[in-house]
């Protein structure tokens, strides 16, 4: 008697699982399976557009890049995933390093993606760019005081910098690029200097850092450019107010250029539907997808000829740093060690 509701629930659950299992195997039509660390509605729209133009349906599984990597590793050659998408070159490098990607080079990919924005072997290909910019409070800082990432370590900004945790991969890649350009010692000194300027222990998201700057908890921070644009265009009036109080700087325009990262994708080493995966990859860098993507997520298109979204274009042109993408991955472990040493968690 006690168990009757449970038994019913069990039957319900079991039939639902059977149903779900069926739907997985249904549609003998063409499919391509994607593991993606980008959870944007914009990507959903891209997949739908791809489905419409090719008849290949996209089945997606989103998650953090690090977790998807472990799942791929455990699945080995049995994996159902054909394409992996990550929002950072460091994670793409890790996927390649773990032998989970296969090299894919096609004429379309080579002509569509500029040389610096894909893996030289073709293991992964960028399809959007994001800049790591400095955000400062307008009533406290003159933009020229923060023309370079170097300035974040200046004594002028003691107790005036907030930063995100270095567990986040964007932060790791930023330091990894510095290690590549200026060496380990310089990178360590810079990280220690910025650490000494912290107004608080690292906490919260990129957006939270911008809010802290706007609210006066600090004078400056570093974040991906599109978080600023999102606040500017938010449905929440408080967000728009926040964006008005702060300014955006593309650092190092007179030096090495602003740190830029990519979102990219690669075909899995054991893809069962390799041709479909390549078609989706080529679609992601096509004019159609790039034009569709630009206004949806405020990222920079992978090719300069394609116009960015109006709000993004309003930020003006900038010069990006010129380092091989693989350096972000190769120096990642070193960057993590440095963050640990200087006490920037």
């Amino acid at each position, binding site marked *: 008697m006690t168990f009757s509701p449970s038994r019913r*629930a069990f039957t319900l659950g079991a039939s639902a699982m059977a149903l779900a299992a069926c739907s997985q195997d249904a549609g003998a039509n063409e499919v391509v399976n994607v593991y993606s660390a980008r959870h944007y509605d914009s990507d959903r729209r891209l997949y739908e557009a791809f489905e419409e133009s090719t008849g290949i349906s996209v089945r997606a*599984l989103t998650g953090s890049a690090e977790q998807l990597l472990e*799942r791929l590793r455990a699945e*080995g050659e*049995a994996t159902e995933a054909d394409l992996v998408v990550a929002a950072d070159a460091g994670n793409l490098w890790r996927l390649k390093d773990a032998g989970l990607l296969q090299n894919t080079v096609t004429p379309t990919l080579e002509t569509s993606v500029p040389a610096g924005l894909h893996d030289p072997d073709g293991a992964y290909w960028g399809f959007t760019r994001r800049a790591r910019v400095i955000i400062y409070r307008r009533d406290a800082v003159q933009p020229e005081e923060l023309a370079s990432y170097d300035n974040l370590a200046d004594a002028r900004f003691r107790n005036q910098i907030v930063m995100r945790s270095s*567990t986040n991969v964007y932060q790791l890649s930023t330091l990894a690029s510095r290690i590549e350009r200026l060496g380990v010692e310089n990178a360590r000194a810079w990280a220690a200097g910025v650490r000494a300027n912290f107004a608080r222990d*690292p*906490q919260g*998201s990129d957006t939270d850092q911008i809010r802290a700057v706007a609210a006066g908890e600090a004078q400056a921070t570093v974040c991906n450019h599109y978080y600023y644009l999102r606040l500017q265009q938010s449905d929440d009036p408080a967000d728009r107010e926040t964006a008005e109080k702060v300014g955006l700087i593309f650092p190092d325009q007179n030096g090495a250029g602003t740190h830029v990262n990519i979102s990219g994708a690669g075909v899995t080493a054991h893809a069962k539907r390799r041709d479909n995966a390549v078609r989706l990859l080529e679609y992601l860098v096509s004019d159609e997808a790039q034009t569709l993507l630009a206004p949806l997520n405020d990222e920079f298109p992978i090719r300069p000829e394609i116009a960015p979204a109006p709000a993004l274009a309003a930020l003006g042109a900038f010069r990006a740093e010129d380092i091989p993408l693989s350096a972000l991955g190769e120096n990642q472990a070193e960057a993590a060690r440095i963050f640990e040493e200087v006490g920037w968690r």
Partner: protein
Amino acid sequence: MNPVAVAAACATLICASPALAVFAFALSGEAPSFGGALLRDGAIGTFSLIAAGGGGAIMLGAAAAWLVSLCRFPGRAVFEWLLVVPLAAPSYVLAYAYASLTWAGGAIDFPVAGFWGAAFIYAVGLYPYVYLAARAAFASQSVCALEAARTLGAKPWALFRRVALPLARPGIVAGGALALMEIAADYGAAQHFGLTTLSTAVFRAWYAHGEPVAALQIASVLLLAALVFLVIERRARGRAAYAGGSTRWRPLPRYDLPPLAQAAAVIFCVALVTFGAFLPLAWLARLALLYGGLGDVAQPLINSLLLAGTGAVVTLVLAAAIAASARRGKMIGKAALFAAAMGYAAPGAVIALGALSLFGLAREVGWIGGLGGALALCALIWAYAARFASAGAGPIDAGLARLSNSLDASARTLGAGPLKRLMRVDMPIAGPSLAAGALILFVEILKELPATLILRPFDFDTLSVIAYSYASDERLLQAAAPSLLIFLAGLAPILVLSHGITRARAGARAGAAATA
């Protein structure tokens, strides 16, 4: 062969294997150089948070349970079920809601941040674990003991401290253990507040250093700590027997509080549900309205409910087998109880990683293929069982602890076998605890994120997955609606079962079983 023992052995194997895999894989690699400092700071962080947040949750929960069970004040009957409400809100949702509500330039200019912010969120978010278990314990207490104390002139405080509290201790300890292990396993809130705990250290080793084996090593320390904690708790409880004094079941006598104390009781209860649920959820509702539109939540809602329902039933059955076997003093049952507790103290992603590693081994041997469709769902249910069996077994075990030994002995004398004693004696008496276990499991799985994220099949999103997707993309407005839905979906079963626990007090069936 004793069927209870066999069932317990199977349940143990299912529930403990991912945690044991964590140990095995942790030993497969060398300790990295950065591990020592991380481990030390993480241990200090976890311990401090447990002391502050867990201590708070236990005190709030026990006090609230005592107030509504044994005192009379305006609104008591409403608060009795309302106080459970924060259980439906995941810690990570509370953390995000408070962070966007209370920053320096926000709607409330008093930042809930850092260590004390996290401790606050754990205390107001997790006290219902203690409240539920303690209330179930108070609700099944013998009237005689309480009445005897009252006849002897005990005031409410003395009655609470010297009679009701000691009698309810197994329940409070079981509920408190759940709250503490929730804190130990929490990643979302601790990471958001920038704290170094064992859990955040696990992810730091994994994500920042790219060393999953080092992550499993830190996780092993967390699991071992949970094990030690549980052993100490068991020893402290010792062989104390909670033999019921009487077989008569009547409504509990309640104290009329003086007016000032009544007002204080009302304010206390209002504050608990406000901070634990209504304030952050009202804020989320505002954000959801600002964004307008629910988004595509119908299918995720259905997926969430089906997973939570199936997962809760499977886990409850396993948990009941483990608890019943442990109660009978079987070694395997006791070991299973410990093993299950490790799963509960581990972050969900770690258990999922353990399950993935075993899956990888099974694939290499050639037993199974890719992790798609039904297999992925089974793996997910398995991870839920490994992670949450303790949440179900704890309350059931506490309920069984109140079962008098003489009753079990009588049933034996009458020739009842283990299975019959389980079905006819243990389970009816543990009824309220069983309901509490089912409730907690359903809601736990509804809120569960990391294992679901890692092990689910393609195109299978749950509410917690889409809430996470938006939140991790820093789109709080869009994350608000699915977060609210997690809460609302968990609310109905919580209230129904919460009502059931109160009603079970009437004891018609339990009383009949006890006198049979």
